[in-house]
C-alpha cells in the first residue's frame, strides 16, 4: 500500500490526520519540521507528501521548492491556513500539485490524496499478465491487445491500480460511473463479467478478477 509522508508540526492536527490516513490503509510517516520532512521525502520511500505550509526550520513552500530543485517528482499536497486564491498560485508555483485550505473536511482531503496517488501512475499498470498502457489508452492480455469500452477500461484501471487489494462496489460505482448508487445495480456485475470474458477469465473460477463476496472485487497481483 502507498506510503504517505505527513509533514505537520501541530500534533493536534498531525495525530488525528495520521490516524485517518492509516484508516484508509496508507502507511503514514510523520515529520514535524521542514528539514527532516525534506530528507524523508528525498529518501525515495514515500509515494505522497502531505505538506503543511507553516513548518519550522524550512516552511512548506521552501520544502516544495527544494524537493523540485532536487529533481523529485513526488506528488505534493499542500495544507495551509492561508486559503486565498493567490496562495494557491504561490503554492503551485513552488511545485505543489494540489492544495487544501485549513480547515478541511477529511473526505475532501482523502479524495485529493487518492487522486494524486492515481495520477502518479502515469507509466504502465500491470498485474497477472494484464497490462494497461495509460498514455495510449491500450490494454494487453498475455501480450495480445484487447479492445475495451471506456467503462471497461476505467474499471480495469481502477482494479489494476489497487491490484491485490479489494475495490468495493461503491468505489467502483463512484469511480467509473460517478454515482455510488450504481453499486447495487446489475450494470456493474455485467461489466465485470464482460471484462472477465475479454481477459479469458472463467466466470466460475476466476484467476485474475476475483469477486470478494459482499464487498467488491479484487484483481490478483
Amino acid at each position, binding site marked *: 500500500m502507498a506510503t504517505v509522508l505527513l509533514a505537520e508540526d*501541530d500534533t*493536534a*492536527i498531525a495525530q*488525528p*490526520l495520521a*490516524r*485517518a490516513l492509516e*484508516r484508509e490503509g496508507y502507511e503514514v510517516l510523520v515529520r514535524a519540521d521542514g528539514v527532516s520532512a525534506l530528507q524523508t521525502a528525498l529518501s525515495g520511500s514515500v509515494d505522497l507528501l502531505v505538506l503543511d505550509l*507553516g513548518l519550522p*526550520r*524550512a*516552511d512548506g*513552500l*521552501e520544502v516544495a*521548492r527544494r524537493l523540485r*530543485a532536487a529533481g523529485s517528482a513526488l506528488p505534493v499536497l499542500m495544507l495551509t*491556513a*492561508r*486559503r*486565498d*486564491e*493567490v*496562495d494557491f*498560485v*504561490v503554492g503551485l*508555483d*513552488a511545485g505543489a500539485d494540489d492544495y487544501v*485550505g*485549513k*480547515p*478541511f*473536511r*477529511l473526505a475532501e482531503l482523502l479524495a485529493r490524496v487518492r487522486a494524486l496517488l492515481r495520477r502518479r501512475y502515469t507509466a504502465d499498470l500491470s498485474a497477472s499478465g494484464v497490462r494497461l498502457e495509460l498514455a495510449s489508452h491500450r490494454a494487453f492480455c498475455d501480450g495480445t491487445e484487447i479492445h475495451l469500452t471506456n467503462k471497461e477500461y476505467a474499471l480495469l484501471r481502477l482494479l489494476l491500480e489497487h491490484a491485490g487489494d479489494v475495490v468495493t462496489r461503491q468505489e467502483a460505482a463512484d469511480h467509473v460511473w460517478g454515482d455510488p448508487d450504481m453499486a447495487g445495480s446489475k450494470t456493474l456485475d455485467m461489466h465485470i463479467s464482460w471484462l472477465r470474458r475479454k481477459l479469458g477469465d472463467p466466470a466460475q473460477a476466476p484467476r485474475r478478477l476475483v469477486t470478494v463476496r459482499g464487498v467488491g472485487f479484487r484483481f490478483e497481483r
Partner: protein
Amino acid sequence: MRRRILAWTLAVVLLAVGVLTVPLLMAAGRYVDPPDRLGAFALVIGVAVGAVVAAMAVAARAARRIVAPLAQVATDAARLAGGDLGPTGRRYGEEELDEVARALDSAAVRLGELVRRERQLAADVSHQLRSRLTALSMRLEEVAALSDDELKVEAEAALDQVDRMVHIVDELLDQARTERAHNAVELDVAEQLAALRADWDDAFRVSGRELRITAPGADAHEPALRARATPGHVAQALGVLIENALQHGAGVVTVSARAHGEHVVVEVRDEGVGVPDPLVPLVFDRGVSGGDGTGIGLAVARALVEADSGRLELRSARPAVFAVYLPRISS
C-alpha cells in the same frame, strides 16, 4: 505661494521706485531747461523701469529657490498619503524645511511598521483560528467515523458549527483586507516597471551593474498587463527587492513580469550566489534585511504587497529570485 512672493515684491519695489522717481521728475521739471527736459524725463523713467525689472528677476529666482523644496516636500507628503511608505531621506539645508522632511520620514517609517504589524496580526489570528478549528473538526470527524448513529448525528451537527465559524472568520478577514486595499487602482505593469528605471539608473551606473526590465505590453504589439494595486506599494516593494539585489547580489539584475492565470507575477532576480540557507526562513523577518533607515525592508515590503491582496515570496534561494504576486485585471 510663488505668486504671492512676487506680488509683494512688486508692491514694495513699485512703492520704493515711485518714492524716488516722483521727486526726481519734479526736480527735472523745475531745474532742467526745456530743450533737455524730455531727455531727463526719459532717463529717470528708464532707470525706474530697469530697477523694477531687475528687482522682479531677483525676486523670481528667490521665490523659486524657496518654493522648489516646499513643492518637493508637498509631493513627498502626497506620496505618503497615497501609500508610498518609503522614507525619502531628503534634506534641504533649511532648518524649518528639514524639520518637516524629518517628520514626514518618521511618519512613513511608523506607518510602514503599523501596516506590517496589522498584517502580522491578521496572519496570526487567521493561522491560529484555522489551525485550532482544523484540530477540532478532525477530532469531531473521528468521533463521527467511529461511533454509533446517535453520536454520529451529534458530531455532524458540531461539524456544521465549525463550518459556520470558518465562514465567519473568512468574512471578517475579507472585510479587513478590503479596507486595507482601498487605495488600490488599475495599473499598467509595464509603465510601473519603466518608472523603476528612472529611479535606479544612477545607482546601477555608479556600481557598474546592469538593470534589465522586461514586461509584456511594453511595446504596442502585445496586450498590456494590468494589475490592481496601490502604485506606491508596488514601487516600494520592487524598490526594496532591487536595492537588495544591488547590495547583496551580483551581476545583472532582471525585473520581469508575466501573467499567471488571474495573477500578475513580477520577479526580481540577480546572478549572485543567492540567499544562504540559514537565512532563507528569516529573510522576511523584521530587522533581518534592509530597514536600516534608507529603505523599508522586506518585512514591510511584504506587508505592503499583502495589503493589496498580493504576495511577496522568495521563489528561489540560489540564485535569489523574489516574486511579487498581484491580482490581475484581464483585458
